């Protein structure tokens, strides 16, 4: 079934994204991983939309793409500011919230 293959692809992308978020120390790579997660969700939505023959899923996917674009914009701006202040974008060094 085509749907299950789409879902499988979504799951794989999701796992890759999660791995990237957890394991990577570079902030830009973490942002990219988040994009992967979001896109895996998109694939899931579109897969179910195709299967049910409704337009709702497509609409949600479009919304998510728009929100993701905004999120990347904000995220890159933050990364840029962090780099300017610290001359580094290593996430391990940003541990000032430690309890």
């Amino acid at each position: 079934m085509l749907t299950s293959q789409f879902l499988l692809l979504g799951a794989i992308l999701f796992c890759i994204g999660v791995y990237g978020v957890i394991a990577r120390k570079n902030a830009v790579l973490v942002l990219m991983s988040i994009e992967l997660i979001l896109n895996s969700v998109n694939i899931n939505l579109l897969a179910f939309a195709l299967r049910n023959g409704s337009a709702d899923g497509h609409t949600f996917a479009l919304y998510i793409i728009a929100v993701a674009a905004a999120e990347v914009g904000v995220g890159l701006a933050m990364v840029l500011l962090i780099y300017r202040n610290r001359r580094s974008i290593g996430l391990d060094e940003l541990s000032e919230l430690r309890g």
Partner: protein
Amino acid sequence: MILAASEILSPLRDGWFLQHAWLTPVIPTVGFVLIVLFGKRMPKKGSEIGVLSLLASLVLASGAAWQWIQRVGDAGEEQFVSPVVRTWTWWQSGGVEFTIGQHVDGLTVVVLFVVAFISTLVQVYSLEYLRGDRRYTHFFAALTLFSAGMLAMVVAEDMILFLLGWEIMGLCSFMLIGHWWEDGANSRAALKAFFTVRTGDVGLLVGISVLFFAANEWTTTHLGLSGFSIRGVSAWALSGEPNSTVILVAAIALFVAAIGKSGQFPLHTWLPDAMAGPTPVSSLLHSSTMVVAGVFLVARLYPVFFTGLDILGPSSNVIMVIAAITIVIAAALAFVQSDIKRVLAYSTVSQLGYMMLGLGAGAWLPAVFHIFTHAFFKACLFLCAGSVSHSASHHSFDMKEDMGGLRKHMPVTFAAWTVSTLALCGVFPFSGFFSKDEIIDNVGGNGYTFFMVVGLGGAFLTAAYMTRATYLTFFGAARGAAAGVHEVHDAHAGAHDVHDTHAGAHEADDAHAGPHESGILITAPIAILAVLAIFSGLFNATPFGESWEYMKKWVEPRAVVVASESHSGGPGEAFVVSVPSAESGHSESPCGKETPPEGVCYAPQVSHATFKWSKALISLAVVFAGIVLSWVLSAALYGRRDPRLVGLTQRNGLARAGYRLLANKYYLDDLYERGVVGSITGPLARGAYWFNQRILDGILHGVAGISRAVAQVVYRDIDQRLVDGAVNASADVTKAAGTTVQPIQSGRVGHYGALLFATAAVAALVFVILNT
């Protein structure tokens, strides 16, 4: 708003003016908005908009009247003349369509013409009378809306629009009566008028609702009309369907509204006080608008009253009883007034009583005819009184103090007053004779002999008090302001038209001229109305034979059975075509409280008394006796100061008691103010004070004492031990917990992400397990 128009399919002619009769109220309404928005910037301060808009309405109303006459001509002698109805859907709610529209028939046309005609003349008169008034623009705005309200009520197709026009008039009368609100008496009079009429208005709401819920089903299935429709309700009332109790309740409720609006006993007390307004307002209010509305309501929904109150039945009904009381008590009150406008006000109340008496006794046409003639001569009388006060008595209305001997100074006003007085008294051949005598004649003809005698007695009293007023104003020696005494009458300032700027503007005029005739803008309307006061009676001159009974031919709805074709219109179906078709037959059976099954009736069958000179001579003799007797007494009392009559009310116990009863207006005002209002407000205030002192303060003191005692206990035991203990304990627990979970907060994003996803994964696992 305009969704669909339903039309009457009819072979009768309906010209442009009949089709567009709904414009008559719309034009003054637009005029009102324009005056409010732009009036102050116009060269004539907005008055030109008012006059022009009502002139346009007059043209439309005249055209409609002309085309209605043609339409009646088309219908021949026996055929039912269907009204020209156009409706538009206003809004829909729960399957009920609320429509707005026009219903033009003979009654509509005649009242429409009278209202537009008199409104126009009164506006022209006001141009001069209120020149220089400080709220000139507002006055014309309110006056225009006032006429618009009456016109809307007259053309209304259903009770919703009827109610709207009715309430607009109530509001405008409040604004106009209180026009000079700086004087406390004027604003009190305005409030009194408003609240008294509102008391009656409750009846209108109740009546409309009862009719709707009772009639809606029948009218929808038989005629395709809603239960608000005047045609529908009329046909329903005559169909023999209605439950007698329901329709009785509806008729009584509607009659209560008519009592309030038309100043019938016991709610007549607001009408004389309404004299506080400017004279043009009194003239309009007392002739064609406002007070006629109540009579019009009864005439419009006549079938409801006919069936509900069993008109023409064996016993007398509530309308006749109330009307008879009103005729007599109001006429008696007119004798003790010294304010010329109050005499006329009580005269109006009494004449409205005649109209109601006619309606109650089944004399529909004479009553409507009396609306027609009364409007002309009563408007003329009020305008004459205004003219006298404007130009001769220095803004005073006191006949005893400031008038007398004015006939030489004011020839036009005097002539018009005399003509109108003779018309009001019912002297042949003036207009009042034809209408009033017809009412009395028909009341007797329908078998109500007692009420006919009351009507004759009222005619005697009317002739007597009007003669007294005429003598005091125009004959005898000049007194007070009329004699050129220019003093400020502080003692009766409440009865004056107190308006400083106006009085100031005319100070120069009055000072050198003394009493003089008014200007052309005042005398022209008076003269026109006086001519109509003479001749308007000829529109239904029963003494001259059948061929003179134009009013009967044109106005009276014909009581014939009309075949009805019902179209059930669902909520979505906007077109409702009902065909009270004219040519499809009528049967011989008259329309009464039981209508034959093959059709519907829109008007009940009433009989008309045949005119006999022997009966007319009796009433003429009564009127003549009243005039002569009153003239002799007035000349003796006010002219020669006859010692046998002067001060009689102080010397004779019986006369004193009678005078005091009348001077105090039968103590009705006292009853309302002390009895009704006082009994509510006084105990209410005392009760509230007692409640405040005893209950509220007691509770407060008690609560304060208790809470102080409780506070002691609370502080020592609960606050110190329990609450503080709990707070300290929770702080300790929090500290221990924080220390325990501190290592999780590593500050590293990767750890947080891992925790987040791990939790999400566990949660997903739990969901999967739970769902399978």
